[in-house]
């Protein structure tokens, strides 16, 4: 499989009154053609910042990209012109955000918003869309997400629909443009489990059908297991572990991943661990070396000074932790 997206050593910071927040601290992430990748981490670890950097929708200022590159199909997104970027967003990238109430405009009908997206995505393509084509594409997109009565939904405002319906509309919008890479930022976090199940199944089907690559951001290990082939665990602005989803969830290597997995309540009823002591570091003054070291029970001398590189642990799993350094 060819590499579609490669994020290399991405550093992103925010300049605020108190100083410089160093949030992303060397993120490495690969997405291959047609692959589904999960990005998991706790609140405030920089998942959304990563995705927003890829889409280049981070507000600048206060944010600034201080290093690294984001290569999409061989070109660096960070050096693209505004026009190239617009074309990329029209044809190649698409996103679903967590809160559909915020990503849908409350004063326009669903139809207006959906038509705008379909029309916009046709700019720069060979085929011109007639008004009838646009209408058909919109209805088709809504129908694909399992929405009953799409004609009526098109005339509704977002506030008239339930949470599950709104999220379906966001999915319909994201998938109506036949993009190559879908960035789904917590697509089901606000939904009930039965609705989440429906939405994930639909997303799964549609992505399969269209052959798009997906990056799913979530903090739910269960969702990642259902939806992705490869998973990246993120902590405090860096990927700490990556690997095949099932293998990684069964044999987590990094102390952080292990702590996280032990904290997930399980149906087997074996109780819940005490969690991980401490909390995510202050980005104004992050700890030197491995950013997890103040919370880590295996902390060694070297962890406090230099941040660890990735070590292969076999089975395409690699871990950024000195515990897995091979003696040479």
């Amino acid at each position: 499989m060819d590499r579609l997206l490669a994020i290399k050593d991405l550093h992103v910071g925010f300049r605020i009154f108190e100083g410089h927040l160093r949030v992303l601290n060397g993120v490495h992430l690969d997405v291959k053609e047609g692959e589904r990748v999960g990005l998991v981490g706790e609140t405030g670890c920089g998942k959304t910042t990563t995705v927003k950097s890829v889409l280049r929708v981070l507000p600048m200022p206060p944010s600034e990209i201080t290093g690294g590159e984001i290569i999409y199909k061989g070109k660096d997104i960070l050096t693209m012109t505004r026009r190239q970027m617009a074309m990329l967003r029209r044809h190649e990238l698409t996103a679903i955000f967590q809160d559909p109430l915020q990503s849908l405009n409350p004063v326009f009908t669903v139809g207006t918003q959906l038509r705008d997206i379909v029309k916009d995505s046709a700019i720069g393509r060979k085929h011109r869309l007639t008004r009838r084509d646009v209408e058909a594409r919109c209805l088709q997109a809504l129908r694909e997400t399992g929405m009953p009565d799409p004609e009526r939904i098109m005339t509704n405002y977002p506030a008239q629909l339930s949470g599950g319906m709104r999220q379906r509309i966001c999915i319909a919008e994201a998938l109506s443009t036949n993009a190559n890479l879908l960035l789904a930022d917590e697509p089901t976090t606000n939904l009930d489990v039965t609705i989440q199940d429906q939405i994930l199944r639909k997303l799964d089907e549609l992505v399969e059908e269209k052959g798009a690559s997906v990056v799913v951001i979530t903090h739910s290990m269960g969702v990642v297991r259902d939806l992705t082939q490869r998973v990246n665990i993120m902590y405090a602005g860096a990927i700490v572990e990556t690997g095949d989803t099932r293998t990684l969830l069964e044999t987590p290597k990094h102390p952080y991943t292990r702590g996280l997995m032990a904290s997930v309540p399980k149906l087997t009823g074996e109780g819940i661990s005490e969690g991980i002591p401490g909390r995510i570091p202050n980005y104004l003054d992050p700890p030197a070396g491995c950013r997890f070291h103040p919370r880590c029970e295996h902390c060694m001398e070297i962890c406090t000074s230099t941040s660890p590189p990735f070590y292969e642990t076999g089975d395409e799993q690699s871990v950024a932790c000195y515990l897995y350094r091979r003696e040479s």
Partner: protein
Amino acid sequence: MSEVPILGVDRLVKHFPTKAGVVRAVDDITFDVSMGDTLGLVGESGSGKTTTAQCVLGIYPPTSGRIAFEGAPIGVMFNRRNRELKRKIRIVFQDPGSSLNPKRTIKQILSVPLKVHGMGTPRERLSMMSRLLEMVELPPAEYLYKHPQAIGGGEKQMVAIARALATNPRFIVLDEPTSALDVSVQGKIINLLMRLAEELDLTYLFITHDLSLMRNVATRVAIMYLGKLCEIARTEEFFRSPLHPYTKMLLSSIPVVSAEEEELKPSKIVSQGEIPSPVDVPPGCSFHLRCPEKMPVCSQRDPEMRPLGDGHVVRCHLFGEPSGGSAPGDLE
């Protein structure tokens, strides 16, 4: 378990009249909580979990039905309850960010329940507050004079728990206490709550939408759907043999993290449809529109709660119908 339940809810109904019609938030539910138990009240959003809790607390007066605490009826508004009752029943809310006053220090926040209930002299209160913070594992010297915004989400929730404990309660309503928190923090809060329950002999009504969490925390689980209870059972029994189709749908929808857990889920029931509006509840069984095992009778008659022994109660036409329904044993 003792004989008299600490909380008894009998045919509780709470309707809210609105312009669009009557919202049947809680519609005839009956359950009780025994001393020392943790009852997990689980349901999707809009199923009436929080309204039930708020009726127990007296934030709303029930439309009809009885609520009894330690055998005495308490179905009245908060402002008509005596202080002793308010001391015994406390609540921890979902989002500690909005349930703690951002302009007050933690000391001020914790002193309110002590003052209201006239506990201790001003000087004694300081040591009481320190002890409360120690109970929730926050070093008092460090936290007493901080504002909520200066501490993390998990720590805020611990302060909220300390505030609930301030009056030596017997019964605490936990309204989704960890759903705003990360899993690594959730573990700590849950373990703390469980330890406190044992040490202080507390009884919890634990409201949540997370069934996997309930598996590890509750002694009994009750499932709510559209203002009604579907099923109540002891936790092991509940997860070993769920009976109501809605329960099975819920359980099979949980995303799990290991193959072991996958085996514990009932065979896949494809979830369909959404929870209808509580203004416009479908006739008969309110779940029949989404139910995979729907029968003609379901759209006509609302099933009754049927005890099936060992505290397992189900409200579904599939079970124990006198006229030709299947016996609970020979399902599937």
